[in-house]
């Protein structure tokens, strides 16, 4: 069994794994980071979205060995219970969820959308960018509102942190 090393949520991890293990299973079963969900398992629903070297990817379509040496960020790593990430806070405030199963992937996608499109987002941009994330409760309205608001808050937060520097 190969020895795998990567950084997950800022911490170096090493494990012996089966070569066939998917990244999503490595995160959930080996590291017990169960915030990353398995929804469709066919790369369509986006519940397994994590960031790999700073970009959103579907962890069910990546082998854990492909992430050797990579930097992985999961929902557990974006904020803390004491201080939620601005995108998490926006989902809470705008109730960007119904059952909540798709929420971790939506938040990871939302942060990625803001990274690529900036902190001032149009509704149409968010809706088209979310095509790889499926909410089976079909509650997209609040999710879109939350992502727009969260992106703006991310901009404010980074402006504040720059001002503080």
């Amino acid at each position, binding site marked *: 069994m190969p020895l795998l090393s990567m950084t997950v949520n800022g911490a170096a991890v090493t494990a012996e794994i089966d070569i066939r293990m998917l990244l999503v299973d490595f995160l959930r079963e080996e590291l017990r980071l169960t915030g990353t969900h398995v929804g469709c398992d066919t790369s369509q629903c986006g519940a397994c979205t994590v960031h790999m070297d700073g970009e959103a990817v579907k962890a069910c379509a990546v082998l854990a*060995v492909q992430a050797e040496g990579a930097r992985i960020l999961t929902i557990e790593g974006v904020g803390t219970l004491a201080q939620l990430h601005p995108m998490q806070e926006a989902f809470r405030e705008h109730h960007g969820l119904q059952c909540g199963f798709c929420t971790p992937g939506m938040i990871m996608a939302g942060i990625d959308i803001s990274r690529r499109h900036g902190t001032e987002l149009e509704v149409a941009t968010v809706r088209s960018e979310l095509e790889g994330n499926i909410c089976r409760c079909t509650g997209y309205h609040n999710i879109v509102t939350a992502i727009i608001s969260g992106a703006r808050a991310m901009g404010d937060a980074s402006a504040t942190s720059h001002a503080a520097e």
Partner: protein
Amino acid sequence: MFSFNYHRPESLEAALALASAGEDARLLAGGQTLIPTLKQRLASPSDLIDLAGVPALRDIVREADVLRIGAMVRHADVAASKVVREAIPALAELAGLIGDPAVRHRGTLGGSIANNDPSADYPAALLALDATVETDRRHIAAEDFFLGLFETALEPGEIVTAVAFPVGARGAYEKFPNPASRYAMAGVFVARGEGRVRVAVTGAAQGGVFRWSEAEAALETDFTVEALVGLALPAHDMIADIHGTGAYRAHLAAVMARRAVERLLGEVG
């Protein structure tokens, strides 16, 4: 998933050696099709050769009248590339329509064309733009590369290194995505060069991507939407499944062709 050996070579030479050594080795590019295929046990390669460690395959280079994109360049990189946007804007736009953002962060040009899925987007661009597929051993014209459903001219162990797109023709790609999967139900790339028009259709036909020569001839005579009126594709050659009949896809392809022509006519210049 069946078991396999995994390799991540750091040079093309090492990858080639592995590809010819394995009894049933498969190359792994972005993995956005191959990994799901392995998960469903639809393939059982003895060895997976991950090309992610070969840096030479990741360049986008503009040389005078050719735009060369490395096989491991990801869809997101093509979509965002300033070089591509300036040379062949329609190509960047097409890349930005593949799958979804997370898939575009992994999927690659080489992986897409080597797989030759009948519903993939890139093959239409290669065929319409008269691109050349470069491998470790030869250059293959796009025309000769796509042989049919999931079939290409690649020989066992042959590795796509880059695709060279001639710069000069203006192109437009119009795609009708399946509402659920986002794969093309029909996608049409129209390229207009000096006195030449090429029309390539993907997503619709059973045999994969193809050139619609009737439409090309009509548009070469008269580059207007009206020139396409009355032209029809044979419905019996089209994919018929739960998402649509052959006649529906034939009609859709004609509509996408008209939209692409409209787009080209609407552009300034």
